[in-house]
């Protein structure tokens, strides 16, 4: 990968890192109300995979969605203010931090673990049947790989050869449950064999690697070779949510070991080795922080949805739909 390309990816990861930190601060001030699931340490997955999609490709995300959303192209304004419950959010402030829909950017997430895999099959089926030049990517965690929905969806996608890239973002913990104790096989990607699919594992903390693999799989999926299941190995540097009792499931030393391997440090080191000026990277980071500070101030000014808005669109009044005949 060229130095310029890596620099771009690094910049995107920096944006996500600082966006996550800004969100964390807002959560600590109780300006984000729902459970907030920090993304720190996993940025190479969002940038590598979600960022490799075209704007009309479909992306299904999880209960830890904010960085996936931004990497897919949702605006920082819409994602942040959704978390803050403001009317300018993706779902008008009615979804909150774990569940929102942004059809304009083909981004959908929800807070029931594993639920998005079956929905991906429907999207993939429609794309295939309608002959569209689009694909669907579905992100989920190691925890979701233990749900019945995972199995049902993988099997259906495989028998119907649907254009879907399933990405298991293995951050080593399903809430407080370490993957090594709660997943029977050594690698989640090994489960792909059970569906007649290739076993693909990628270092999820190496953004060059995630992007390279993502682009290749997306390309192959466009050619009709899908579906694919890829496991991206990464590590959740913070708790499942802010302030969770971390010591009940992992040692501080373990976190420190992984911190040495986190994706931004690695990318920056490579850039410096390639001769990029550290001051230049620092300036880049400062620009991002300034931009996010402006975003924060703007977000705090945004209105909350009204009760009228909250109970609107529960369903379409009968006889009011475009396709109804009564």
């Amino acid at each position: 990968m060229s130095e310029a390309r890596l620099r771009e990816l690094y910049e995107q990861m920096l944006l996500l890192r600082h966006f996550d930190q800004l969100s964390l601060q807002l959560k600590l001030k109780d300006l984000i109300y729902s459970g907030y699931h920090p993304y720190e340490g996993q940025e190479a997955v969002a940038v590598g995979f979600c960022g490799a999609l075209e704007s009309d490709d479909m992306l299904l995300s999880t209960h830890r969605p904010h960085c996936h959303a931004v990497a897919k192209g949702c605006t920082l304004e819409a994602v942040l203010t959704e978390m803050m419950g403001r009317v300018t959010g993706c779902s008008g402030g009615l979804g909150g931090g774990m569940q929102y829909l942004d059809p304009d950017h083909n981004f959908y997430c929800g807070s029931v673990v594993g639920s998005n895999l079956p929905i991906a099959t429907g999207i993939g089926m429609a794309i295939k049947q309608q002959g569209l030049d689009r694909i669907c990517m579905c992100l989920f965690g190691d925890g979701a790989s233990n749900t019945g929905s995972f199995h049902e969806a993988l099997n259906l996608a495989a028998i119907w050869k649907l254009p879907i890239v399933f990405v298991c973002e293995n951050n080593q913990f399903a809430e407080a449950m370490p993957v090594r104790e709660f997943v029977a096989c050594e690698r989640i990607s090994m489960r792909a064999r059970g569906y007649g699919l290739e076993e693909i594992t990628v270092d999820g903390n190496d953004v060059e690697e995630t992007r390279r693999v993502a682009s290749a799989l997306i390309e192959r999926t466009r050619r009709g070779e899908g579906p694919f299941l890829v496991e991206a190995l990464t590590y959740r540097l913070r708790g499942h949510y802010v302030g969770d009792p971390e010591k009940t499931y992992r040692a501080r030393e373990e976190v420190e070991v992984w911190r040495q391997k986190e994706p931004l440090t690695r990318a920056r080191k490579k850039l410096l080795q390639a001769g990029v000026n550290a001051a230049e990277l620092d300036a880049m980071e400062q620009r991002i922080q300034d931009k996010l500070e402006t975003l924060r101030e703007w977000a705090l000014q945004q209105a909350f949805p009204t009760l009228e808005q909250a109970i609107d669109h529960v369903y379409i009044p009968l006889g009011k739909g475009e396709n109804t005949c009564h």
Partner: protein
Amino acid sequence: MSLITYGEAIRQAYREEMRRDKNVFLMGEDVGRWGSLYRSSKGLLDEFGPEQVKDAPISEAAIAGCGVGSALMGMRPIVEIMYIDFITIAMDQIVNHAAKWHQLSNGKIKLPIVFKTQGGAGRRNSSQHSQSLENWFVGIPGLIVVMPSTPYDVKGLLKSAVRDDNPVVFIEHKSLYFDKGEVPESEYLIPLGRADVKRTGEDVTIVATSWMVSFALKAAERLEEDGISCEVIDPRTLWPLDQETIIRSVKKTGLCLVVTEAPAEGGWSGEASSVVHEHCFGELKQPVKRHCGLRTGIPYGPVLERQVVPSEESIVEAVQELVTRGALITVQSGTYNFMEGKDADVDGIDHAHVGRSDGRGGRAFLEETGGRGR
């Protein structure tokens, strides 16, 4: 008009809608090769091909999720869950996604999905293949719930459900597939959300759903011979409920019996009953009476399963009791006293009469079994 079965009426609806719109497709377990369990899609795989008639693996969550995803992409899926008992596996998709996305997208996303299934007793399948679970869906904002009782209704309502932009839970009844009824030769639609007065009458309003409608009609015929004139209303759509038709009728008759196969407790029958109490209190000669399935798992075999749900005979008895009670109170006191009903059930619910072969009613059974019947 032609005389066809409920199953054939469903097949006609599929055929007409799939021809009209290529985005309409049917997906489910054995809907293709078998033409569905009760043959309601027989022959459609040959006619429309595997893109519009899809056999799916036994994966209810994936089938329902496939409905959500494909509807998101502009298709109009009819996803069949073979037995409503299996919809438990698909609940996450229906309740957490299909019912929520229109609202979560501020109205931008429409999910025109028909979750089509069948429920109820009558085919000797015991408690994991015979349940009446419609109440769950009535309780979920965002879903339309339809339960057709005749060939005419099932065709017209299914076509409307396919064309409606909301997710619709469409619940057929396994004991109705081979019932015949008159259906017009030409195309027609029945609007969702409208009840049908199946029989007009003056003395009692019977509100009955699905399989119970046919029993209510037969009971009404017998009661007519005894001089009791019953109006039978089939809501057809449980939610949104056509309150107006029910209210209009009860204001006329002053007596109302709600009959469902599902147990009364926590159910739609309570919703219907409340609507009547809220709007017709002044006109009511007696509190609304509910005559519903016993709160039990459907027992195995042809005899017991019929005894735990209302029947023609038990509806006749329930109406007679309601009428007698209403007449007594009116004559004796000239006013309403809801606590003085003759032989009122302890819990105010008239459970399906059990052990009718020896003439004992539901209450006797309950007393005899120390309440085990519940």
